[in-house]
């Protein structure tokens, strides 16, 4: 058994845990933004008006078909050339992760909305509810409850995806693992094993929560 005191000491572990903090912050911020954006995209794709429906559909289908790493690189290196504003790596990371995840969440939200019994919607309409009221009081509450497990597993995917922001220099968990592993005593195996275990514990915990939610609904 090799000596691992250099890894399991307070400064190194604190360095890595701050990275986990960045990872969680990136994921939490991006899931919040992408939920709002995904909701708009889903409603847009379900809209009666072609001028709203087509752009929303196009956005969802194209973004879903591209690699996230490309979107991250584009947001950090390419987007500033278009908008003329230099982005901090963290800002670029949140924009890219949110824009990408929004397209995936939009499809989850859309299928959730479509799964709501048509009769319920008609019943609400026949009671004189307006379109917005039907959506806010009937369709979305039912749809949201059904989508919760899928949204949690999307959050797990997003948490893993935050590791890709390491390539634009965000000091999240994976990047910090690389830094520790390339310093004396140059032993990457225990470092990456520890990083993997940290991700596993967080994500497996979340997946247990998701399963619990599914069972409660069943």
């Amino acid at each position, binding site marked *: 058994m090799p000596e691992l005191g250099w890894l399991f000491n307070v400064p190194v572990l604190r360095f890595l845990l701050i990275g986990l903090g960045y990872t969680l912050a990136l994921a939490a911020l991006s899931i919040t933004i992408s939920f709002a954006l995904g909701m708009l995209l889903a409603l847009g794709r379900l809209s009666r008006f072609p001028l709203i429906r087509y752009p929303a559909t196009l956005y969802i*289908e*194209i973004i879903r*078909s*591209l*690699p*996230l*790493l*490309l979107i991250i*690189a*584009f947001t950090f*290196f*390419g*987007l500033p*050339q*278009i908008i003329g504003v230099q982005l901090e790596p963290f800002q670029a990371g949140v924009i890219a992760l949110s824009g990408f995840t929004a397209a995936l969440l939009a499809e989850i939200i859309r299928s959730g909305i479509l799964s709501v019994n048509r009769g319920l919607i008609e019943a609400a309409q026949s009671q004189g509810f307006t379109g917005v009221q039907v959506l806010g009081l009937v369709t979305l509450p039912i749809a949201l409850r059904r989508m919760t497990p899928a949204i949690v597993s999307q959050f*797990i995917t997003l948490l*893993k*995806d*935050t*590791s*890709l922001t*390491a*390539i634009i220099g965000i000091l999240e968990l*994976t990047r910090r*693992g*690389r830094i520790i*592993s*390339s310093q004396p005593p140059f*032993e*990457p*195996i225990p*470092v*990456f*094993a520890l*990083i*993997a275990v940290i*991700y*596993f514990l967080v*994500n*497996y915990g979340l*997946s247990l929560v998701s399963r619990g939610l599914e069972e409660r609904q069943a």
Partner: protein
Amino acid sequence: MRWSVLTDNLDILLQGLLVTLQVSVLAWLLAVAIGVVVALLRVTRSRAARFLGTAYVEFVRNVPLLVLIFFLFFALPDIGITLSGFWAGVIGLGVYTGAFIGEVLRSGILGVPRGQLEAALSSGLTYLQAMRLVILPQAIRTTIPPLGNQTINLIKNSSLTAAVSVFDILGTANLIGSRTFAFTPVYIGAAMLYLVLTIPAAIGVNAVERRLRIGYR
């Protein structure tokens, strides 16, 4: 914007497309092989085998692919196994996607009525024969659409090999971008190349899905 950067570098971008295809095909073969083994482990009666299969799936699915690839590329040389970026990418992608394909195949296998396995066993087939001749052919049929989606994910994820200095589509785009600073046109060009691969694949998956649905009616 200097779009000429795309035509000037078309040859190496297409070279990158070829590398993306190579990584994807090799990783897909590995992923399917792993997926079949994992799915079989998870449906056998042996508790040890089931535990092994479940542990593999749960671990790999909950760890970022980039961490797996970094482990293969940066850590394995420490124990004397030096992989090129290309092979670290292929193996990492295969190991990762294998867990997802294993889950897809498992639900396909469980979708075949239990009575069929019993019938096959009682007519004298061994467990492996029953799987190979009776259960798997049916399971594969119902799993083609989700398998297609995993394949599309694999193609997209193959871009992570760029992080271990493979010149696939994204790696080549990064290179051209850092040489010319024409990041915007180069990444848009790279996006087009990915769309050329993923959109027909998605249309194909949808078509097969519709076909199969009709077949079951």
